[in-house]
């Protein structure tokens, strides 16, 4: 176990380093640069003026030097300033990250609360009309893009109820009710995909587990249908479901980007999209690196949790 964890932790360093190089280069390879955006492509700007802007932004340094400055700043807690607004990048992300985290957490909670009971119900009533309905619903959930669903939900509530979530973001600690009313629709929009995955995975593993000997034994011992399903079958069926939910955090974060734009929530995804259009290198690089790091660390944690939950992994 210790060796496995050690190996996985050792892989983390090179993975993050490789990611940082790829992110840095990809951002710098984007056509157009921040100077073009700042000048609006104004061709009356002289080469000297362009050089002056580049110098003021630190973009006159060789790329390896810029990379070292950035990565050193990331590690020491100061990756620099937004090239467009000159706000410290960590100030911007400090504002945006809690919104996205709240959105993703809410989406996971919704997915689990809806997906698992649906999956269980579907498995225990396999091939019934209810099972068929849940499976078709799951297929639809997998097929519907979150941005389309988000737009549809917004238009529906505005047309039918003459209501949309409050337009200015209110932090949870400041006004919990307003905050929840703002976050529930976007969270629902991005969770539908994960609800479908959780439901299908729960159904499949439950069907598998329900055929196992220990379930038959539990039934033979006179256990009630409810206790056999939830105490014996579901607990074992949940192991792969937990893993899948963990892996979906990345999907939810990327799904959050477009939904944040639609609902006007100033989260990380929205910030990143704005930064990409503005060629705000420092902000794009740091935000992408942050998201990628979260993804990698979460994957690691899921892997480790899997080992803890399922002892057979250690043997393999």
């Amino acid at each position, binding site marked *: 176990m210790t060796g496995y964890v050690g190996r996985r932790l050792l892989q983390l360093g090179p993975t993050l380093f490789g990611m940082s190089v790829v992110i840095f280069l990809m951002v710098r390879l984007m056509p157009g640069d921040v100077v073009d955006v700042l000048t609006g492509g104004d*061709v009356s700007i002289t080469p000297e003026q362009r050089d002056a802007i580049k110098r003021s932004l630190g973009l006159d340094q060789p790329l390896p030097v810029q990379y070292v400055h950035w990565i050193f700043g990331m590690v020491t807690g100061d990756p620099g300033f937004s090239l467009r607004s000159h706000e410290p990048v960590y100030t911007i992300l400090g504002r945006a990250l809690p919104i996205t985290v709240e959105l993703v957490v809410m989406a996971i909670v919704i997915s689990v609360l809806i997906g698992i009971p649906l999956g269980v119900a579907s498995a225990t009533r396999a091939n019934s009309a209810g099972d068929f309905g849940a499976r078709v619903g799951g297929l639809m959930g997998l097929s519907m893009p979150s941005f389309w669903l988000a737009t549809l939900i917004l238009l529906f509530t505005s047309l039918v109820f003459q209501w949309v979530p409050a337009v200015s973001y209110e932090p949870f600690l400041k006004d919990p009710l307003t905050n929840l009313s703002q976050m529930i629709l976007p969270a629902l929009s991005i969770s539908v995909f994960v609800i479908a995955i959780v439901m299908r995975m729960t159904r499949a593993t439950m069907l598998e587990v329900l055929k196992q000997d220990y379930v038959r034994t539990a039934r033979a011992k006179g256990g009630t249908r409810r206790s056999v399903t939830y105490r014996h079958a579901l607990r074992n069926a949940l192991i792969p479901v937990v893993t899948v939910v963990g892996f979906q955090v990345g999907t939810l974060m990327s799904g959050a980007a477009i939904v944040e734009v639609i609902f006007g929530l100033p989260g990380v995804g929205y910030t990143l999209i704005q930064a990409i259009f503005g060629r705000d290198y420092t902000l794009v690089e740091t935000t992408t690196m942050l998201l990628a790091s979260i993804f990698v660390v979460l994957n690691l944690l899921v892997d480790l949790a899997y080992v803890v939950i399922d002892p057979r992994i250690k043997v393999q």
Partner: protein
Amino acid sequence: MGDYRVTRRELLRQGSLLTAAGLLAPAALLEACGNTSSSPTTTGGTPRAGGSLTWALEQDPTYLAPFGPIPTSNHWGNELIYDSLLQWDKNLTIQPALAESYTTPDNLTYIFKLRQGVKFHNGNELTGDDVKYSFDLIRNPPPPGSVSSLGQVPAIASVDVVDKYTVRFTMKKPDASMLGFLAWGRYSGIAPVDMYRQINPVTQGIGTGPMKLVEYIPNDHLSFTRFADHWNKPLPYLDQILMKVLPDEQARVAALRSGAVDGATLSADSARVLGGDKSLVVLKGLTAAFREIQFTIKPGENKPWADKRVRQAISHAINRQDIIDKVYAGDGKYSGFIPPGYGKYPIADADLVSNYLKFDLNKAKQLMSDAGFSNGFPMTMLSIAAPADMTQAAEVVKQHLQQIKIDVSIQPQDIGTFAKNNGNGTFDCDLTSRGMRGDPNGFVAEFVSNARLWWPGYQVPSTIADLISRGVATPQPDQRYPIYTQLQQALMDEMLEIPLVAVYKYQVVNRRMHNMYVAFTDFNTGLKQAWVS
């Protein structure tokens, strides 16, 4: 499409107020950009003080700093905070603002007399020192500004404080763009001395404008409160304004329908959909952002469009009304190099339609034949991907040019990539959009200043350069009008750029909102005078 109300009466009233204000400048100068068109306005009536409204912005301002490059969306964020020495009214007539009058003792000097008793949001009184401080920073913008805005700034040699309420501007050369630059206000906001040391100008601001900034949360909202000591009483009428950033158009539509926001800018299609909603009013107005095609001509490349007749053929093969009908649902106008709505400078619509920009396929074919290209040629056209209308217009142009056997390949690009190619001149031709300028010279100066970049393989006629020089050096509007007419005629003979159409901007507002109008400048200036019932 909702109800429009053209308020010519209000214009006349403003004109008489201007006279009463005793602006000392020569009357002719007041017409520096005098305009005959007026924008539809929400219903007037007796303004009511108090109340609040929420306005949806389609883009985050990014920062509020008043000096340096100010993209239009940035100005949406700071136009309620900062005032300039002069201002345009909604018909682009220059009006006094922080300067109550000015004199021009010679063609190199402007002396501005400041309004007395004007207060900044921090309670300090406006003086000549503040004007000098601001113009020093306009000409040397600190971060987040940069020198990239200097191309928009007139040729100011020095700014001197004559006394507490008098400031003298000395120009490097005669430059008639000075007054329009000040009235435009985009780059000429006045801030108090040392503001950049006292606050963070990225998210805060101290000006003399009608509203005080309460907070700016980037990517989310800006909130403003009424500045009771504003110099231009009885403005503002509103107690609070909230600007919410809602980049998604359907989100703005939903927010308007539900009443969560009181007004927003929308596409023509969305505006039409909301036209049937009785609680909403649709406003539309022209802006300066006309669409055009632009060529590059490089030495040694010998591209077909290096021949003037080919460029003329392309212009005559384009059916502009078809573009207006197919892309802009019938709402649009022909545009010359100075867009319709920009005072008396544009060429009359009838002349454009029946002469300079006439759709004449036979003439186009004849010109192509004369140039030796009756079999056509392939051509790559860049377009801006968003907003989508420019790529849609390019598709329509492609169909038109097939009639003269030009095979157009369209490459939509995001704005950053497009700007890069445009700035480097690395394109054959592109379909692009122009923006507002403080002076007519801004629409034509590039035919000299950018010739080395876009047309190094072509000799732009010297008459064009001469007319551009004369235009910018001539302060009297009556003398400038014929110069710019002649200049546009010469440019429409050359067709190094082919003007296409001027398009309308749509803003949908709640019926309780009054006095709002679509500003030709593409700003939301109507919010300064808006009130709610």
